[in-house]
Each structure stands twice: as C-alpha cells, then as structure tokens.
C-alpha cells in the first residue's frame, strides 16, 4: 500500500479465496450427495456458483495485490 508490505486488499483476497474454495467444495459435495431434508431452492446449488464467484474474486485480488508486486 505505501512501502513494501502486505496490503489490506491482499488479506481480503485471501479471505475470499479460502472461503470461496470451502463453499464451492461443500456445494459440490452436497450436489453429489443430496441431503434427505433439503433447503428452499436447493436445486439452484447456490453454494457451487457463489463459492466459485468468491474464489475467483479472491484470486484476482491476491494476484493484483500480491506483496511481491506491491510498490
């Protein structure tokens, strides 16, 4: 951000990436092993696409704000 170091945006990237991967993974698992009692709109598999979106945004932030490329 100012001198060399880890910027807040990189930490946010890490948070979104890790959470996104966890949610995506849990979503895929549930899709392959549907639970007996399902949530409303289960058929949309929100975890899969939302997890993917979060992971992608997180990855972009991590790349753009990686400490090695920070000025």
């Amino acid at each position: 951000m100012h001198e060399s170091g880890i910027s807040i945006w990189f930490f946010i990237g890490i948070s979104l990436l890790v959470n996104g991967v966890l949610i995506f993974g849990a979503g895929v698992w549930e899709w392959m092993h549907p639970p007996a009692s399902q949530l409303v709109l289960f058929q949309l598999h929100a975890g899969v696409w939302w997890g993917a979106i979060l992971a992608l945004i997180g990855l972009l932030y991590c790349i753009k704000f990686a400490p090695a490329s920070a000025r």
Partner: protein
Amino acid sequence: MHTTQLVHLSTVDVIVVAFYFALVLAIGFYLKSRANTSEDFFMAGREMTAWVAGLSFLSANLGALELMGWAGSAYQYGILAAHWYWIGAIPAMLFLALVMMPFYYISKTHSVPGYLKLRFGEPSRVLSAVSFAFMTVLMSGVNMFAMAKVMQIVLGWDINFSIWVSSITVALYVALGGLRSAIFNEVLQFFLIWAGAMLIPILGLIETGGWSNLKILIAQRASAEYVHLWSGLGSFSTNPMGIHWTGIVFGLGAIISMGYWTTDFLVVQRVLTAKDLRSAEIAPIIGAGFKMMVPFIVILPGLLGLAVLPMKLTAESAVTAGGHSYNDVLPLMLARYCGPGLLGLGITALIAGFMSGMAGNVSAFTTVWTYDIYRALIKKNATDQHYVTMGRWTTVMGVLISIGTAYLVMQFASIMDYVQALFSFFIAPLFGTVILGMLWKRTTGPGGFWGLLCGTVCSVSLWTWVKIDPTALRYVALSPDAKGLAQDMYQATWSFLVCVVVTVLVSLMTKPKTDRELVGLVYGMTEIPAVGTLPLYKRPVFWAVIVGVIFVILNIIFW
C-alpha cells in the same frame, strides 16, 4: 424464551468461522511492527487511502446488532426502516464530506474532543471526552452482551465462551496493531458482510418471483403500507411506525443523522486517518455510496421474511416457547437458503460485525482516553513511546471494562435501554456545538461549553419526562398520535435548538476570539486548497452530486 437454537453449523461452517478468527489475529500480529509511534498506533499513520478510510468509516457503523435489528425492523414496519439508511444517513455523510471535513482535517486534530479544545478550549473538550469515553466503553459492553446472546440463540453457544473468545481476540489485535488493525479488520468485515448476506435477497427474490410479486405477498400478509417510503407519512396514523414526515426530514434527516455522522468520534476517526484532504473528503462519499446499497442486504431480507417465512415473528417481549422475535428474521432467512459453508460465512459476517464494532469502540476509547484525558490532564509531557504503551494497556483495560458491563447487562437487562438512551443525549447538542464552531467566527469558548451542556440537559430532561409520564410524548412530539420512535426525533430536535440558542446568546455576551486563534478552525479563517486544476472526476463534489442524484431517484422509485 427460545428453547432451540436456530441454526446448526456443519464442519465446513466451523472451519469458515475458525479461519476468520485466525485471519484477524494474523493481521493484528503482522501490523504490530507498524504500530510503534503514537501517530501509527492512534491515527494509523494518517496515510489511509480514500477507499480504505471510506469503507472502514461505513463498517464502523455497520455492526451485526444493526444488521439484525434493522432486518427485524423491516419485518415489523416495512420499507420505512430504509429511511435510516437513506435520508437518515446520505445527506449527513455528504455534508460531512463537503462542509465539515476541511475543518476537521486542516486543524490536524486527532478526535472530535480535540477539535473542541482547539476551537472552544479545555472545558468543552473535557465535557465531551469524558462523556464519550464513558459511553463508548459501555456501548462496547452492551454490544458484547448482545453478541453473546445472539450466538446463544442462533448457534447454541455458551454465553461466557462467546464473550471471552471474542474479547480476547479483539484485545489482541487492537492492542498489537492499533487503529490500523481495527481499520483493516473493518474493511475485511465489509467484504464478509456482502459475501455472507447477499445471497439472501438474491434467492429470496427468486423464490417470491421478483419485487412486484413480493409487494403483493406483503400486502396479503401485512398491509400495502409496508412498501411505501413516503406516501403514508402525511399523518401519524397512516403508517406502521406512527411517525410523520416532518420527524423523518427534520428530526432524523437534519438533526439525528447529522449529529451522529458528523460528530460521532468512532466514525469521524476513520476519516481523519486519510492521507490528504481530498481523500478525507472522498472517503465519506464512498461510504455514502455503499450505505445506499445496504438496504438490499438488510431491509430486503426483512421484507422477504415477512412474505415467505411460515411462522409469524413477534416483539421480543411477546415471544412464546418455540416462537421467534423480529430480530431473528436474518438468521432464519440464512437458515432457509444457506447450506454448509454458506451458512458459516453468513454467521462469520455477523460475528465480524460484532467484533469490529467492539474493536471500533475500544480503539476510539483508547484514543480519547490517551490524548484527551490522560495526556491533556494527567501526564502532559511524556515520551511518544509512553503514550503508545498507555494506548496498548488502555485497550486491554477497555476490553475488561466492556466485559464487566456485559455481565452487568446480563443481570439487569434494562441497562441496555439506558445506555442507548445515554448515547442519544449527547449527539444532537454536540452537532450544534461543532457546526456553530465551524461556520460562525463569533462563537466563543463559554458559548460552546454552555450550549453543549444545556442541550444535553434538555435531552436528559425530555427523556426523563416521557419515562415518568409516557403521555408527555404528545407534547414533545406535538401530536397525540406520535409513537415511540417519534420521541428520538423530537428530543433530538429540541436539544439541538436549545444548544444553538444558548451558544449564540452566551457567545454574544462573551469576549470574541481573535482571528489568530481561529486560523484553520472556522469558515472564513481556513485556507481550503483549491481544486482548480483537478479534472472533474477527481473532485469530491462531482461524486457527491452523483450519490445525491441516486439517493433522490431511490426515494422516488420507492415513494
């Protein structure tokens, strides 16, 4: 009384929550090396960009209690709750950005009491600092208790576990990294709240078939008045809240929101950390832009809950076994749509909201105690390192006092109402004092002090009168149909007026300050850097106009 927890966390959910705690501690430890001077520890080095200052400015206000409470209010009162996010915030945030920020920033003050000292002298500073320090650490305790209660109801967690785990985490990351750590975690919280809560309105609108269908469902289950922002406010009796448009515009829009957004030290402190004046002006505008979008994840879920939840929610006091209160609507909607992982993220967003609220209060308390009380009155000429050490220990003490308050509130639940009321006593008069100080050269030190004191006494008196005799509300709010919420609006208006009148009268009777004493503090004596050569899109006023136009359009759309 709740007998079963609302949601059950799976292993993935627990990992998501645990990862959050690990990350905030990692941020605190990482930032310790950048928090060794008082400028770094208390003011984050005054080098935050507009985006960081703006997002943390908004997040400092966006606590979990607020998220859950306003979703509950939307369920209870309909779209009227959105007023607290639109007219009750946007004009004030834009006003702070364009009118007040130059004086706060150019005066190089570290806090709102610090500005009062420069402008009015020590008595005003001490009055405001002591009341603020006291209030903020109590609020932190009240929030801590509320969080523990929510975690117990929603997750079945033991109250003591919630209090101690969250307190120790907050104490660590703020004592280590100072204000920068609190700000970084607030920005993180902002992203987590959107990531965790945004699915509810998206899936909810899919389930109801869109906004038009949602309105039809709400009209069937409650009333068509629930989806109109202004058309029912012509009289106290034609809307679910029992308020009038004058209370919303003048009480909420002009006084309460101005008082809060322009003088509450917790939010103003974040903008004071900006790296230059232009960033300090743009930060609240960025905050305003996102604040306008918050109803999408707070108010809309409350309305969706009204339309789709099979059970009827009630006031907290009327909850029966197996029943739920209005404040449960957000967790219930999370449980409705969010599977493993998603649920954990939603819960993490709530926990993050609570913890950064605590961190914000504690870091504000630490700054005001160290600069405005300890350094000003007790130990004036210590080394910089001494004040940083005092700051770290004050952080720990502040958290411990908050824990004590949390346990006190557990014993005497009505304390929560009193603390909320105490907080509201100060903000409207403080706004009067600060705005007169910034815009009118003739305001004197005694004028500022007596105006602030009399305005506060007026707030306390009106509140006490209505508490002892609830029918007195008809006089305070000037109508027999006024209900509870109207009290805040009219109380604030009266106390603001008293503060202004007393300040003006006492100032005119006392010796004016010299021009030299007012440089950098008041309109006409402050050289505000020109923006002449800046392209239009870099000027704060350009973005303020854009945000203002969108604000007007939203109010028309949802009329």
